[in-house]
């Protein structure tokens, strides 16, 4: 029946996908909650002092983000799998098991982060409490669990395409998943040599977010444009190949922009600077691609909120990852900006713009189908105010935080780095400067705006299409 949430409206892969999406939304809320606390700790340093210190709140903030995006991606792949392959998901029971494994592992890791927090400098701590390496803090047992779950996920996807039909999108997707899973292994060892440690650590971080994740969302985008606009498969596939060529052509050696200051040889200054400066090119291509396709189809889309979030994704990706990344990627400027709020500014806009947006788009595609393929184009109940306000508040909130952090980052680069020479005293001279404090205050204001956006988004996802009796617009 139209307008009612019913699992019978979903195929096997989609039933699993909505489980992933549900956990992803919970972690998204947790990310913002802990972001609010961490942001507040810049303004009120005594907040939760000795109870939930900044290193804990910030760790939960960024880890919740990595995991909810990863779960959002996995859900998105399960969502499109049967549709794209033309057969039922292979090994779905195992896939369900992996979901519960991953969800329980994440729950245990978060509880340990919150209640154990830290441990002595021994192997037990790294295996069972906290690895202490930014973004991949998860203890080693959880790393192994994640790898097992990823292998099952990969098996589900690859075996289903092998049994059914291959397409350009699925071909790129599967090769990308091989790289994505393989790269994670580069972060799973201990070395005392911090230069070698960070060398491989960046393989995981950079080659995920600036290469394989970008290609993965390129696949979701290509599929999304076919579904939402009825774009021709041949056109989007050709675009996807162009994007892969440009993305990997710039992003793989763009890794070098993390090898300026960690002890690695000087030739990385040229290689990293040059290739990372090219990284925005594929992102421009994506903007052209999506906006052109939308225009060519006169914005007649099967799902307006999802389409709006896809457009937000292309612009967010271009500005957040492309422009904000380019601004500080050349070594001549990075010497002063590296390790300042400038990076935080880029991080907020890039992760949100490139990744959160497109996963939210798939959330909307999912609820539409879950309610029986209801109408989600123009003329929604209340003129669709909830999704429009959620879109505006989330994008406005993140953009506001980005600008506030950028100003703080400028100030740090000039005062702490260029003038004061990066000593501890120089650091604190910059931290108490009015421009920095104003930046932190405004970041908090826009953090609250973002939080209002997520409340509205969750409310909308739970209610949109409820009681709707029109079927979705055909494209």
């Amino acid at each position, binding site marked *: 029946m139209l307008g009612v949430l019913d699992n019978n409206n979903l195929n096997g892969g989609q039933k699993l996908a909505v489980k992933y999406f549900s956990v992803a939304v919970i972690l998204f809320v947790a990310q913002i909650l802990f972001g609010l606390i961490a942001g507040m*700790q810049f303004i009120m*340093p*005594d907040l939760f002092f*000795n109870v939930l210190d*900044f*290193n804990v709140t*910030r*760790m939960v903030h960024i880890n919740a983000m990595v995991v909810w995006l990863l779960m959002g991606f996995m859900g998105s792949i399960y969502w499109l799998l049967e549709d794209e392959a033309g057969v039922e998901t292979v090994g779905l029971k195992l896939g369900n098991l992996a979901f519960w494994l991953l969800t329980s592992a994440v729950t245990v890791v978060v509880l340990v982060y919150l209640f154990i927090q*830290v441990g*002595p*400098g*021994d192997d037990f*701590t790294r295996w069972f409490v*906290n690895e*202490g*390496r*930014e973004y991949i*803090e998860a203890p080693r047992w959880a790393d192994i669990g994640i790898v097992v779950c990823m292998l099952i996920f990969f098996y589900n996807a690859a075996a289903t395409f092998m049994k059914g039909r291959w397409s*350009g999108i699925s071909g*790129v997707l599967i090769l990308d998943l091989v790289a994505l899973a393989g790269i994670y292994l580069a972060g799973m060892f*201990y070395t*005392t*040599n*911090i*230069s*070698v440690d*960070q*060398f491989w650590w960046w393989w995981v971080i950079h080659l995920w977010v600036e290469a394989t994740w970008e290609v993965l969302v390129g696949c979701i985008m290509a599929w999304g444009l076919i579904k939402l606009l009825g774009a021709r498969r041949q056109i989007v596939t*050709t675009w996807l*190949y*162009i994007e892969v*060529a440009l993305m*990997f*052509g710039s992003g*793989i*050696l763009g*890794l070098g922009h993390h*090898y300026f*200051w*960690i*002890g*690695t040889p*000087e030739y990385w*200054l040229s*290689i990293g600077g040059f290739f990372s400066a090219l990284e925005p090119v594929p992102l421009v291509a994506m903007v052209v691609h999506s906006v052109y396709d939308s225009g060519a189809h006169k914005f007649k889309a099967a799902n307006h909120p999802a389409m709006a979030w896809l457009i937000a994704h292309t612009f967010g990706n271009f500005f957040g990852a492309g422009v904000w990344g380019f601004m500080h990627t050349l070594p001549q400027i990075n*010497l002063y900006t*590296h*390790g300042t*709020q400038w990076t*935080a500014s880029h991080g907020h806009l890039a992760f949100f713009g490139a990744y959160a947006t497109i996963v939210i788009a798939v959330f909307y595609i999912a609820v539409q189908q879950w309610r029986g393929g209801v109408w989600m184009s123009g003329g929604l109940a209340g003129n669709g105010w909830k999704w429009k306000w959620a879109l505006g508040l989330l994008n406005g909130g993140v953009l506001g935080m980005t600008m506030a952090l950028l100003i703080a980052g400028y100030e*740090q680069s000039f005062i702490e*780095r*260029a003038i004061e020479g*990066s*000593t*501890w*005293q120089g*650091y*604190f001279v910059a*931290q108490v400067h009015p421009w920095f404090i104003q930046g932190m205050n405004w970041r908090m204001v826009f953090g609250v705006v973002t939080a209002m956006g997520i409340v509205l988004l969750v409310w909308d996802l739970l209610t949109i299409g409820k009681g709707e009796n029109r079927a979705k617009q055909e494209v």
Partner: protein
Amino acid sequence: MTSKWWANENFWRKSAVWVTASMTLVLILLTFDTIPKISVGSERVPAYSVINQRIDYVFNKERNFQVPVIGQAQPLFGNTLNEEEAEALVTWGKKITQGRNCMNCHTLLGNGAYYAPDLTKAWLDPAWGDSSTRESMMVNFLMDPVSNYMNDSGRKMPNMNISEQEAQAIIAFLKWMSSIDTNGFPYNFKPIDQEG
């Protein structure tokens, strides 16, 4: 199928494969070149026993930025360690910094969080007075940062229950890290007076 190469699906599929494969290959080759250059005991990343010596951060005219310079004997806490002992101490120190999650407030080599100062050259920081007061000030700070904090931002490092031995290991790790050639990062750094 269109006849124009730039709109041809097949052309772009092949390009994607070739570009990805060749870039991956270049990265692998560069990795083989880089790893020996950043191995412990190389020119850029000194052996752990460097903690037995004085480390300076001096402007190099040729390279036009500051580089670490390893000088005369200056044993850490008065103990000259052999290579294995030095490695064991620095290893313990690094493991403590990971176990205490230092990187989610501080940056190391500029990477981490931005709530507390960068630790790349913490050993050389003028906040520790001069070379006669440095070691004891660092130990006292690490063991009780709440009563020894030294800034007016209101931000304090929480007490991480660091023992004296653990503090010494952390300092050994920091001293060794300060000897890594980081291509002039942090720039314009004003090191501690080591003549005093």
